[in-house]
């Protein structure tokens, strides 16, 4: 990955802040958006990006975060529908080329794949890992 990307991260919870800290440390320009200002407390002191307090389903908030300039948008909130909406808006309204959405419910993942939204489902990922380690143990 190039070291000077502009990345917008929606949701500053455990996953969002972790990504923001890592990407900022790697030298990327980062903006994090969260509706709750206390969430920014999860960011490390070394985090050098921007913070935007607001609801990412509001178009004006995404504009304020300069999503139109972003190389990558990652939506990590706890709400599947917010992540899926943000991903689609970033793509179609702001023309962002690379967009990732966190989706908890595997049944939703399938339909949004069809809509062209790239999704990562922690539930499926964790289940795969559990199964793999279980099968490994079982075979020994």
């Amino acid at each position, binding site marked *: 990955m190039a070291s000077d990307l502009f990345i917008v991260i929606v949701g500053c919870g455990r996953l969002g802040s972790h990504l923001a800290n890592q990407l900022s440390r790697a030298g990327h320009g980062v903006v994090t958006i969260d509706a709750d200002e206390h969430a920014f407390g999860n960011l490390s002191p070394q985090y050098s990006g921007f913070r935007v307090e607001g609801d990412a389903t509001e178009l004006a908030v995404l504009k304020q975060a300069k999503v139109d300039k972003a190389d990558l948008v990652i939506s990590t909130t706890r709400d599947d529908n917010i992540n899926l909406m943000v991903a*689609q*808006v970033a793509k179609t*309204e702001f023309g962002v080329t690379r967009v990732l959405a966190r989706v908890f419910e595997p049944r939703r993942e399938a339909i949004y794949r069809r809509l062209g939204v790239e999704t990562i489902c922690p539930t499926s990922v964790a289940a795969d890992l559990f199964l793999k380690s279980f099968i490994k143990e079982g075979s020994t």
Partner: protein
Amino acid sequence: MKVLIVGGGKPVYFLCRTFLDKGHEVTVINRDHEECVQMARRLKVTVVHGDGSDPNILEEAGSHGADAVLAVTPNDQDNLAVCQLASIQHDVPRTIALVNDPDNKNVFKKLGVTAFSTTRTIASMIEQRTALDEIINLIPVGEGKVNITEIKLQPTFPVVGKLLRNLSLPTDSLIAVVLRNSDAVVPRGDTELRAGDRIVLITLPANHGPVLKAITGETS
């Protein structure tokens, strides 16, 4: 018609009643259990308790046979998800979403979802009404690109007593109908405007103000 409504609160209750009165079959999906119980007691609707953007709940509510799905929750993201699920996965022919943020209306359109914004409609109605008492009705049509306004002509208006052909209204405006003594007339050039007439005026938002000024003579 079979209508599926996702959402809650009084708007949904009265929407249901309106649809039922017209003889439609209505199913409601609501997250609040208590509200579901109340709704089922008061109205002859099928009520499903749960998250309407959950594919299983939507299925359970019979979205496959529905003619229309209406998503009117207070969250734009949920309304979008419901409509996309219904149209893509369950082949519902008509889906309509409420957008709470008026800016999202165009965004939803790009994503293939028909949306309406009550905020925008109410705001424009209030603006126009408070500006002029004589305006009886104002309806934005064509995604707000055209205004239809109903105005009652007062004796003080400069257009009163004039023939239509002698009026100098700005371009892109039209007096479509004159209502006089409970008769509706589509006016011609030789129609005279009289005090007490109610006219139906078609304007574009850009010239709405100047046209109203020309008719009422008000400077503000």
